[in-house]
C-alpha cells in the first residue's frame, strides 16, 4: 500500500500541493485534473524526483526516503515528456533501462524481448526510436517502465497525442498490468480513466477534491447534470454568461450540457452521467 500523509510542495511562494492525504492500493487509480492541478508534481514526489516541503509518503508503512534506492527498485515510471535516446534502437533502450534498474544481464535481455512483444513491438526491437510514431514511443516507454516487474507503476499522461486506436490499445495494456500492482494513471483525458480505473482522484489547484470510484462519483452528482436545446449562437451566449458548460451536437440539434450544483430551471436533468460531467462539475466550481 502507498500512503500519502499531509503532503505539501511549495515552489517559493507558490504552493503546488496543499496537504494531500491518500491511500493507494492495488489496481488502477486515475488522477484527473486540469493543467496545473498538481498531477505531475504529485507523481514526481511519489517517484522521489523532487523534494517534498512537508508530509510523508509511506510504502508498506515505511517512508520512501528511508527506503531510498530499494523503493525505486519497485517503481516503474513513464514521465509526461517522452524522453528517450532517439539514436538507440528499442531493444538497446530497454536494455539500458534494465541496467539502470539493476537487472541481471540475462533476465534483462529476456524481459526486453517479452515486453516488446507484449506491447506489440516485437518486430521493432532493432529499429531506432527516432523513427517511431508517438504511440509506438509511448508503448516503448510503458515496456521500459514494466522492466523488472515493478510493484508500483506510475504513468504520467501516457496517452497524450495518441490516436483513438492507440489510446485504446494502451489502455488495454494498462488494465492487464494492473493486476497485483499499484498503477497510478495521471491524465486529463477522462475516457482513459473511465475505462480502466477502479478509483479516481480529482485534483484542482493542488488539492484532492474527490477520491472515490467512478460509479460513486457519478452517483454523487445525480440530478446536477442537465441539458438545454437551442441555436448554437444562443447557447454560446448562455455558456459565456454562465462561464461553464459545453455545447454538444445531437441529432436534433445543439445542446448546452451543464454540470452544476445550482442547475438553472430551464435545463432538463439527464440520467446518462459520465465521468466527464464529474470532471467538469468539480473543475468548473
Amino acid at each position, binding site marked *: 500500500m502507498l500512503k500519502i500523509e499531509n503532503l505539501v510542495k511549495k515552489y517559493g511562494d507558490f504552493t503546488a500541493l496543499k496537504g494531500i492525504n491518500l491511500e493507494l492500493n492495488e489496481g488502477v487509480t486515475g488522477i484527473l485534473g486540469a493543467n496545473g492541478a498538481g498531477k505531475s508534481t504529485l507523481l*514526481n514526489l511519489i517517484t522521489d524526483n523532487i523534494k517534498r516541503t512537508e508530509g510523508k509518503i509511506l510504502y508498506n508503512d515505511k517512508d520512501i526516503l528511508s527506503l531510498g534506492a530499494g523503493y525505486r527498485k519497485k517503481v516503474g515510471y513513464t514521465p509526461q515528456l517522452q524522453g528517450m535516446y532517439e539514436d538507440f534502437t528499442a*531493444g538497446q533502450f530497454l536494455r539500458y533501462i534494465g541496467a539502470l*534498474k539493476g537487472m541481471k544481464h540475462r533476465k534483462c535481455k529476456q524481459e526486453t524481448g517479452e515486453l516488446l512483444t507484449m506491447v506489440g513491438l516485437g518486430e521493432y526491437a532493432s529499429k531506432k526510436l527516432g523513427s517511431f510514431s508517438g504511440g509506438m514511443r509511448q508503448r516503448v516507454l510503458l515496456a521500459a517502465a514494466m522492466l523488472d516487474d515493478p510493484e508500483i507503476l506510475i504513468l504520467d499522461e501516457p496517452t497524450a497525442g495518441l490516436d483513438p486506436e492507440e489510446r485504446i490499445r494502451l489502455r488495454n495494456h494498462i488494465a492487464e498490468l494492473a493486476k497485483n500492482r499499484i498503477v497510478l494513471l495521471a491524465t486529463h483525458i477522462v475516457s482513459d480513466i473511465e475505462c480502466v480505473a477502479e478509483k479516481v482522484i480529482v485534483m484542482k489547484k493542488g488539492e484532492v477534491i474527490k477520491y472515490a470510484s467512478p460509479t460513486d462519483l457519478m452517483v454523487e452528482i445525480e440530478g446536477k447534470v442537465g441539458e438545454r436545446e437551442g441555436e448554437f449562437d444562443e447557447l454560446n451566449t448562455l455558456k459565456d454568461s454562465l462561464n461553464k458548460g459545453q455545447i454538444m451536437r445531437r441529432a436534433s440539434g445543439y445542446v448546452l450540457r451543464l454540470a452544476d450544483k445550482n442547475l438553472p430551471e430551464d435545463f432538463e436533468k439527464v440520467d446518462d452521467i459520465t465521468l466527464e460531467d464529474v470532471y467538469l462539475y468539480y473543475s468548473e466550481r
Partner: protein
Amino acid sequence: MVEFRRIYGKKTLMLFFLLMIINIGIFIFEANPNKEITITGELLNEYLSEYPEFLNKTIKQGKARTGIKLFQQGFASEVTSKSVERYEALIGTEPKAGDNRGMVLFLQSHVSELLVLFFMLHIVTSMFDERKKGLVNMVRATSGGRAALFLYRVGILIITALFGTSIMMGSNLIGVAFTFGTDDLLRPIQSLPEYQKCPYGLSILGFLIVLVMIKALAIFLVGLLMYVLRGLVNGFFFYVIMGGLVIAELLCGILISPVASVNLFKYINLFTVIKSEDFFNGCVYLNIFDSAVDGVKISCIVFVSLLVILGLLGFMIHGKRYAVGTKGGERLGALLGRLRERFAIQHTLLGWECYKLYIKQGAVIFIIACIGIHIQQSAKYGYYYPVPAQEKLYYISYKGEITEAKVNKAEKWMNTLKDSQENYEKRLEEIENTIPFNSQRYQSTVAALNNNMDLQKAFAPVLEDLRNGYKYTIETGKSVSLVEPYTYDFLLNRDVQTRQRAAFLSIAAIIGALAGIFAFERHTNMEQTINSTYRGRKIALVYKPVLIFLTSFSIPVIISLVQMININKNMAFPDLDQAVQGMRYLNDFGIYMSLRSFFIFLLVIRGLFGVLIGTITAVLSRLGDDKFVIICRATIVIVIWLFLAELVPGLEFLSPINLLGYTWV
C-alpha cells in the same frame, strides 16, 4: 531575410566566434618571431639580386629545349614554349627587399580555409534542419518554400564563403601585420623567395586579393556541392560521399605529378584550388590529349560551369523533389539494427555510460580528431636540435656519478683552459709589440686562442652541471650522475610550439568530449526517467565522475606522449634511470627521483590539470542542455582564464596552456 536570420541565429554566430578563436589561437602559436620562416638578410639580398639572372636563365633554357628535336612535339614541348612566353612577359620585374616573414607565414597557413569549410558544413546542415524537425511538408506547402527558398540559400552560401574567408584570413593578416609588419605590399609577388617561379606580374597586395577571391569562390562551390548532395541523400550517406570526395580529391592533389598525363585531376580539383599554391608557384598547364592547355583558364571554365550546373540542379531538386528517404539508407539501417539486436550485448552501467558518451555523443570523434591533428602536425615538424659536438664529448667523458674527485678534475681542466687563455693573450701582446710583426705566428696564436675559447664555452655548461649536481649531493647526501641534457632540454625547454599545440588540442578534445556528459540527459528529457530508477542516481554520483576523470586525464597524457615518441625517433632519452637532479634546470628539484619517474610524474600532473579542465566542462554541462552552447561557454571560460593569466604579471604559469604544457616546471 527571414531565412538568413534563421540560419545565422545565436548558435551559428557562437560557432563562428569559436572558430575565430581557434583560428587566431593556432595562428598565434605558429607566429613565433624567433622561428625561421623564410630567408632574410644577406641571403634575401642575394636572392633579389639573382632574380633577373634566374629569369633569363629559365627563358634561355626553355628556348634551348624547344630547339631540340626530341622536345619539339607534344605536351612537354608546349609547356616549355608557353612557359617561356610567360616568363618573357616578366622581364623588367624588380623584386624588392622587405620583411617577408609575415606574408610568408600568412600564405603558408591553411587552417583558416579548413575552418571556413567546417563552418560552411554547419550552414548547409542548418539549412536542412526542417527535415530533422518534421517541417519539410509545411515549408514546401508555402509559396516561397521551394525554388525561391533555394535562391535565398544560395545567397547565404555566397555571403558565408565571402565573409567567412575574408574575416578568417583578414584576422590572420592583422595578426602578422601586428607581429611582423607587412612592409611594402606593392612590391612584386616575386619579392617573396617562395614565389620566385610565379608567372604573374602581380603585386603582393594584388596577389592577396586574388587569393582571397579564389578561395572564397572555391569554398562557395564546395558549399553548393554539399547543399545539392544533402538534398539528394540522407545524413549518413551524405557524410560518406563527402568524405570519399575529400579523400579522392586530396589524393589526386598530392599524388599526381604536375606533368603526368592525368594532371587534369590534380588541378581541376576543389582542394587544389582552395590551397591555390600550385597555381602561383609555376606555370600550370593541363595535359589534354597531349596538348598543353592553360591550367588557370581551364580551371576557371570548369568551375564556373560546375557552379551553373550545381545551381540548376539544386534549383530543380529543391523545387521538385519530395522529402522521402533513400531506400538504400533505410535498408542498410535496418540491417545494422538487426545485426545489433542479434549480437546484443548487455553492458554494465559503466559500459552504457561509455557507449553514450563516446559513441552516441561523439566524444571519440573529438579525441581522435585532436590526437590526429597533433600527430599530423608533429610529423611535419622537424625535431632537430643542433647538438654542440665538443660539449657532447665533454658530457660523455664526465659521464657517471658526480663525485668530489670528478668535480675537482673538471675545475682543474677549466683552470688549465683559463691559464692557456691567459698565455695566448700574453703571447698575442708580445707578437703585436714585436718588430717585425710575425703575422703567421700571430694568426696561429689567434686560432689557438679562439680554439681555447671554444673549448671553454663547450666545457662551461658541463662544469656548471657538475658543480650543481655535487652541491645537491653535499646538501642531501644523495648521489647524482651527470645527465646528457639535449633531449630533455628540447623536450622541456625549447620545443615550446609542440607543447603549446599539445595543450591547446588537449583542451579542445576535453571540452568537445565532455560537453554533453550531463546535458545529454536533459536534452533528451531522460533525466526524470533515470533519476526514478534503482541505480539512476549512481550515474551522476559515481559513473559520470569516473568517466570525466578517465577521459580528461588520459587525453593530455596521450597527446604528450606523441611529442615524446616523435622526439625519441630522432634523439634518444639517455640516462633515464639517473636522478633528475643531475640534469640542467632541475638540479634543485625537490623530490629525489629518476628521470623516468620524473616524466611519469609530469604526465600525471598534466593529466590532473586535464581533469581540472574536464571538471569545469562537466559543471557547465550540468547547468545546460545544449552541447554546442556548453562547448562555447567552456571555451569562453578557458579564453578568459588564459587572458587573465597572461595579463597579470607573474601569473603566466597559471594559464591553462602553461599548466598543461610543462613550462610551469
